[in-house]
């Protein structure tokens, strides 16, 4: 489903050696598979996600989704790809202040051609599935961090994407709430056969994945996971 072929992305540094954020990464993710990329800060995790999301162009290599190369899409095509085929969950919980959970979750749907009323109608079951049915009329400021993250997941899944990218989704949460959110994320994606690429430096988060990879200095190394929260083997 998702295939990364020898992806390379370097960032030039004035009067210095370029930063090798992504340095020859290859990866295959099957439909409905949950993959975790584990690594410390600055290891290139976010750059890799942005390459997959077509927010950055690689210096070399390609990103294929269902055989379609999205690494060289023109801007409007890349935007359509993100709108319909991709969901993106971030660590920073940038909900629209003043707007309700319902409106925040429906934001992505409003970008399609279905109109505001239909978008608000369609998002309700998903919010209920994520345990926000009772909180949908609450404004962003009235939601807890965990609830805000669930709103972001609802937004990401609202257009029924094939692939969901999650960038440190539990970074703002305590371990209990982080686990709840990850469980929901994993279940929701499994129910919808959505592939997930999760980026994290939290070993617990990596335990939800079918496969775990370590990213260090822009290079990818596969690890093993026992699905109980601990990474068994490094390298």
């Amino acid at each position: 489903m998702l295939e990364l072929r020898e992806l390379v992305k370097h960032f030039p540094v004035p009067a210095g050696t370029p930063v090798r954020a992504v340095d020859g990464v290859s990866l295959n993710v099957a439909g409905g598979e949950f993959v975790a990329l584990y690594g410390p800060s600055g290891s290139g995790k976010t750059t890799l996600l942005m390459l997959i999301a077509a927010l950055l162009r690689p210096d070399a290599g390609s990103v294929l989704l269902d055989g379609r190369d999205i690494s060289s899409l023109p801007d409007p095509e890349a935007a359509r790809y993100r709108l319909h085929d991709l969901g993106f969950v971030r660590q920073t919980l940038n909900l629209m202040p003043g707007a309700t959970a319902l409106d925040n979750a429906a934001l992505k749907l409003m970008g399609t051609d279905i109109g505001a009323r239909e978008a608000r109608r369609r998002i309700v079951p998903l919010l209920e599935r994520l345990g926000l049915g009772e909180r949908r009329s609450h404004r962003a400021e009235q939601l807890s961090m965990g609830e805000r993250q669930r709103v972001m997941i609802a937004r990401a899944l609202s257009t029924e994407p094939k692939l969901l990218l999650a960038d440190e989704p539990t970074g703002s949460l305590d371990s209990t709430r982080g686990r709840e959110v990850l469980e929901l994320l994993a279940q929701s994606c499994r129910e919808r056969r959505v592939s997930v690429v999760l980026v994290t430096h939290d070993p617990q988060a990596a335990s939800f994945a079918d496969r775990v990879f370590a990213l260090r200095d822009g290079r990818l190394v596969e690890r093993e996971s026992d699905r109980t929260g601990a990474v068994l083997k490094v390298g």
Partner: protein
Amino acid sequence: MKLSSIVRLYRVRLRARLTQELFAVLGIAIGVALLFASQVANTSLDGSVQRLSAGIVGDMRFQIAGRDARGFDAALLSQVSRLPHVQAIVPVIEQNANLVGGGGERSVDMIGTDPHLAHLGGSIAQHLGSVPPRGARVFAVPPAIAQDIGVFSARPVTVQIGSSSATALLVPQLLARGTGSLGESPVALAPLDLVQRLAGLPNRLTSIYVRSAPRFDRLVKAELERLAGGRLNVRSADITTRLFRRAAGPVDQSTGLFSALSALVGFLFAFNALMLTVPQRRSLIEDLRLDGYTRSMIVQVLALDALVLGVVASVLGLLLGDVLSVAVFSANPGYLSFAFPIGEQRIVTWQSVTFAVLSGMLAAGAGVLTPLRAEIAERRAGLLQLRARQSRPQSWWLLPTAGACLAGTTFILVAEPQAAIVGVVSLTLALLLCLPALLDLVIRASGRLQTLLSGAASYLAVIELRSRSNRPRSLAIAATGAIAVFGSVSIQGARDSLQRGLDASARAIDSGADIWVTPAGTANSLATMPFVDRVSASLAQLPGVREVRLYRSSFLDWGSRRIWVLAPPRTDSHPIAASQLLHDGDLPSATARLRGHGWVVVSQAIASEHHLHTGGTFTLPSTEPTSLRVAALSTNMGWPPGAIVLNADDYARAWASEQPSALQVELAPGASAVAVGREVKQAVGTGSALRVETLAERVRLHYGTASQGLSRLTQIRTLVLIAAVLAMAAAMGAMIWQRRVRLADMKVDGFSRLVLWRSLVWESAILLGLGCAVGAAFGAYGQVLLSRALSVVTGFPVIESSPLAPAASSFLLITAVAVGMVAVPGYVAARVRPAVGLPE
């Protein structure tokens, strides 16, 4: 993307940014209001004259007119009527009259014509159909004018024309209906013969309006010129409007320029307010991009923001502008009313509304789309954490461009002062382009100073100023202060220079006599109305009077200019002041020549238009066209279209009339002006149409008139200052308020409330002080530029003053007031509880 989604997105986001949106609305509204009010003020003056002129001439094509108030023999009427292809004619006699009623007096343009011919003229002339026919001593004025002199129903009033005074029945009700085109125009409509009798000009007309058959205009005009014989003017019927536009041009230009400065401040106000919403909008744009919104979809979302903001702000701005145009920018005719019948009604044209609304929409669009522009520029660098890796914006071109703008301004100042507006724009650009570099310089200097002071407050202030995220807003705040002080110093300096010049001009002309005797009426403030002299001989006999001299003056239409002709007595030892001459060294020869025979001093503008030079000969198009020589070149004496000065004897020859327009009474040594003034008033008679003024009274009157004419500039400057102080204080206050969480963090780290407050005041003082100081420096240059433009382009008598004092006072005033205003929210913000900084 459906419209309903765009609207929904707008609505759900509005709640959180309502306060900032209101700031933005207010900012744009102030800019729109200033633009709209000044537009209305200008079009009201133009429109008043235009409507009046059109109302009289209707579809008439030509006007054959006399060159003075005495006009020409009415026998010409029958000759004109017999010309081939002439379809219709309207005879008119027009005189300046002073109406005295129970509640006051008012100068009007008294228009007499034949009621039987009323239907041939325009909408105003048609009102004459309701005026009683020949022989009746009845006339009408617009109800508003009648009320000014305390007349609410038919009542006899005194009509003063020249030195004549008579009574006639004023019936305001005659013009009570359908006077839309008249409004508050200072005109009186009367039967032809009544005006002829009141003015003592039986069988005389001042003009005949002519309608030619289609396609025979040229033929009819040639025939009229043949009849005129070079002693009358043959012009298009709407000549008054054109003459007025020429006269009002400099005032319109200066008001327009200063209004543009006001609008710029208003825009910066709006920009400041919009900067408060930038973080939210940037965050929204990031989210939308991640979620797959295309750029055009994001533009649609933001465009609705701009549309709503622009529409609401423009509507509010129009309402505010309407109030301003009534309360502050009232259509004050000032000195132009001495030569043109200007009403005080407000005229709002669709062009004024459109211009103001478009400006408001543009400001809203520019402000709202700014974050999108930045976002597109940063697109390739990516989002999220990668922003930290961005290289700093390339701004190396700012200083060289600012230098080029300054060089351009200097070139305009030296070589092309007529392009002063371009000069002011390039100076403003230079100011704005310099600001980033100067801000960096000041921050570096503050950093050095901070190491000497070793204070926590100054340390925190410098840290905040160095923050890249604060930079756009810091620049906007400093720019607002800079533009405000720049505008204020430029406007006030140029105004002061002009006021000084006009005062000197008035003093020089008025000092020709100790006591002046002139026909009454504000429209005769420049003593331009001739009268039959029956009193000079008796005045000369009064004790305390050494001599009574005849002064002559009038307005003369020459080409597209209605020029002011001044003719002091030949014996006057100072017929012209040195300050009025363009070259001081000309004074002795100019004085000698004016006291000789056949010499005139001509304003530079007139000389340029007619290619005249000192020593050259030309023919003055007066009643008796006369050959004269140019003695020297002068300023315009404070009359925008220009002036000429000759001696009273040459004037009498050129106008074929011995009538004076003023009597100049010179006191005997030791005599009191006040006491002799009383004697003169008694001798003239209490019921006389002549007014007696001492030199001091007359100078005071003229100073007041000049000051009134310039009052709009002072009002604009005051509004600019108020708007700027509010803008800066509001923006700084809002920025400080948004920083409360960070302040709470610092409290957690142990910083005291006092230290935090002092750091906020430090930061504000540095930013506002920088902006105001830069504005003051550029404003001083702007004053020099504007003063030179006024002197060279418009020909006004400008006496330049040092720009340092107004620059320093504006800098201190605005900085102190704005910092003082910021200190209050700073104090409140510094009291934030430390707990606010701790997350859940």
